[in-house]
């Protein structure tokens, strides 16, 4: 009898693991979402000058305090997904949101051409040529977008381009909630 039970162990283990797999596939989850260590903490300290030839001011961590809800978008002109999400940022900006940018490891001339071609949704742009600020924000690539509240605390992180579905389903609800809470 003991031997028979022992022979049932493999199938029992497999059934348990299979159950987890089924849950993993059916539950509404996004395996690529990585929580940020920054959530509900102050944004990292940084001070970035505007990249040469850009007609908006630079960006420092002080700019994120006391100016209401701010959307911080980390982007680069060489990044294709950034182009894809650009119209979404334009939309957020023209809907009255405060959008600022960190230009990650970019060449000034390329950035100027990028903004000339696609328009500039950013009120401020910090040039992060050596990628130091990117490390402080803990990004895994570009684009990434953070929502910072009026006290300068990071409240939300979005990895990858914001597509229109993300905007409705994820970004807008966070913005609305923060605005209701009074920034």
């Amino acid at each position: 009898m003991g031997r028979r039970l022992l022979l049932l162990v493999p199938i029992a283990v497999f059934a348990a693991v299979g159950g987890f797999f089924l849950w993993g596939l059916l539950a509404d989850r996004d395996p690529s979402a990585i929580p940020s260590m920054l959530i509900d903490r102050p944004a990292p300290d940084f001070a970035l000058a505007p990249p040469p030839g850009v007609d908006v001011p630079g960006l420092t961590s002080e700019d994120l305090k006391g100016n209401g809800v701010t959307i911080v978008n980390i982007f680069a002109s060489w990044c294709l997904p950034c182009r894809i999400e650009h119209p979404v940022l334009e939309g957020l900006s023209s809907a009255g949101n405060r959008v600022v940018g960190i230009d990650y490891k970019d060449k000034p001339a390329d950035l100027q051409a990028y903004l000339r071609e696609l328009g500039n949704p950013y009120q401020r742009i910090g040039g992060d040529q050596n990628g130091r600020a990117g490390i402080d924000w803990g990004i895994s690539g570009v684009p990434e977008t953070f929502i910072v509240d009026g006290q300068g605390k990071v409240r939300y992180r979005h990895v990858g381009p914001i597509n229109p579905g993300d905007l409705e389903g994820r970004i807008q609800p966070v913005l609305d909630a923060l605005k209701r809470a009074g920034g």
Partner: protein
Amino acid sequence: MIPELGHYALILALLVALVQGSLPVIGAARNDPALMATAVPAALAQLITIGLAFLALTWSYVVSDFTVLNVVENSHSAKPLIYKIAGVWGNHEGSLLLWVLILAVFGAGVALFGGNLPERLRARVIGVQGWIAIGFLSFSLFTSNPFARVFPPPPDGQDLNPLLQDIGLAFHPPMLYLGYVGFSIAFAFAIAALLEGRVDAAWARWVRPWTLAAWICLTAGIALGSRWAYYELGWGGWWFWDPVENVSFMPWLMGTALLHSAIVVEKRDALKVWTILLAILTFGLSLLGTFIVRSGLLTSVHAFAVDPARGLYVLALLGIAVGGSLLLYAVRAPALKAGGLFAPVSREGALVLNNLLLATGAGTVLLGTLYPLFVEAFGGGRVSVGAPFFNLTFVPLMLPLVAIMAVGPLLAWKRADLAGVLGRLKLAFLLAVAVGVGAFWAERAQIMAALFLAFAVWLFVGTLVEWAERVRLLRAPLRDVWTRARGLPRAAYGMSFAHAGLAIVVAGMVGSTAWKSEATALLAAGQSMTLGDYTLRFEGVESAPGSNYQSDRATVVLLLDGREIGELHPERRFYPVQGTPTSETAIRTTFLDDVYVVLEEGEGRGRWTLRAYHEPLVPWLWLGAAAMVLGGLLSLSDRRLRVGAPRRARAGSALAARTA
């Protein structure tokens, strides 16, 4: 037209698989020779139809037929021909087609070379292969049709991910699949044995060459993949415990265990129930790999595009294949007769210990890989499991494994004299201690490295000692030794090569993790940086166009003690179609170490960042892996396996007498 023919051939293949999976199995159950005889032509028809489908897709890639969606998404007209062909399996749909093609190759192999198998066993094995083919062909046709058309056709394709445009990676997936899918034969044999209710020495001898062939391919595939990660990713590492690496490693561990336990079944008629379980689990883990890569269940750098419907389909396949066979196992395994008895200290005992360690190792890797999923399912948030976990759990398990690998081959079957065997390994022990103490002396901080290096020496010398004992080196006249060395079966040399190869691999792992050094500097032309004993002088960067990319190529002169010893040319490439930059590392390999240089982004004013690694002993990783593959090939060419299995014993007793 050609893509439609391919699609049609694939549908035909599914119909053939339905025949292959039913008639021979029914024939075997009813003992009907006419029905069983359908197995061979069905397996061959399977190969022809899937082969045609594969050729059709390859054709579409070669002529850049941009009316085929799969070609549009993964190819580009300017891509070199070799990468157009490699692009066929560089994506989900095409790689699935390669998967079933290899399955058909193995099925046809059993049909063609299995003439010495008993009719019923062959019919059942081919039938089980047919079941697997039904599952994967329907998966391909219903969820991932590689021949889907697109209208209007775009002017050009979207190109293959530039990281994948590499010669090593072009051959990595086929090798890996040959390994994964090769284990399906062992699986089919196991299911056939359960259906038939008997496992004997003859069965083990039929299973072994197929398992060995799969193991060789998987070993080569993993080595190629890790080599690719090493020189292409530019991080100076060769193994990252990424889920996709782990899922190729688990079947390797299980398959290695299977390879060894099959020996015990063959020689001693013992461990039968365990060997059947290993055969099922090895293929089950191969399927798990396919599932994880294609379902988006875990994040990984090389996961294919995620589609929940596909994930559910593969999970269902996995559930039916593994769940069904484990259920069959639970029901039928008690009917298998237990075989030969042995004392704990014996060759069998050592192989059992080897099996337990390998299986535990595979279990540890599985736990580490799936742990994030388990934690998340219990609401624990997201965690990631990386090298620290595996270094603490898996790596220590391998120490006793390496230790017994040197002892096991010297032990006698049934009952062995451990003290006598350890006495014969005195030389290995002394050398291991000397090297270990020496390494510890040289670098106090690296006690684990010294320990592992000592174990590697123990295994290497122990393997040599075993060979020397067999040929009676230094004990018999030289002419006698020569005759004995020539007379040793190739399988014995295979074992020696594989074990010594692992020792070399372990030494390579130690060197390249413990004694690695790295340096990064921002340099203008003419400036230098130091890396360990080496100096690297940066000479500048020039731009040059490539076939489908733009390249910045640096010249770096390598100096040792002020003397120029070589020139390195790391590159940064930009692939305009995919819009991504890649860096091509430059590596200077000697027998003992690698100097590895990566060109990073320039800052635009003539200065560039260079990252350099010094990796001692890293070439030994590939050298050792090559020795393991060679060992496998030698063993596969052994006369015993070429001549084929003996006819099945009518009664068990005749066998036991012959193989003792």
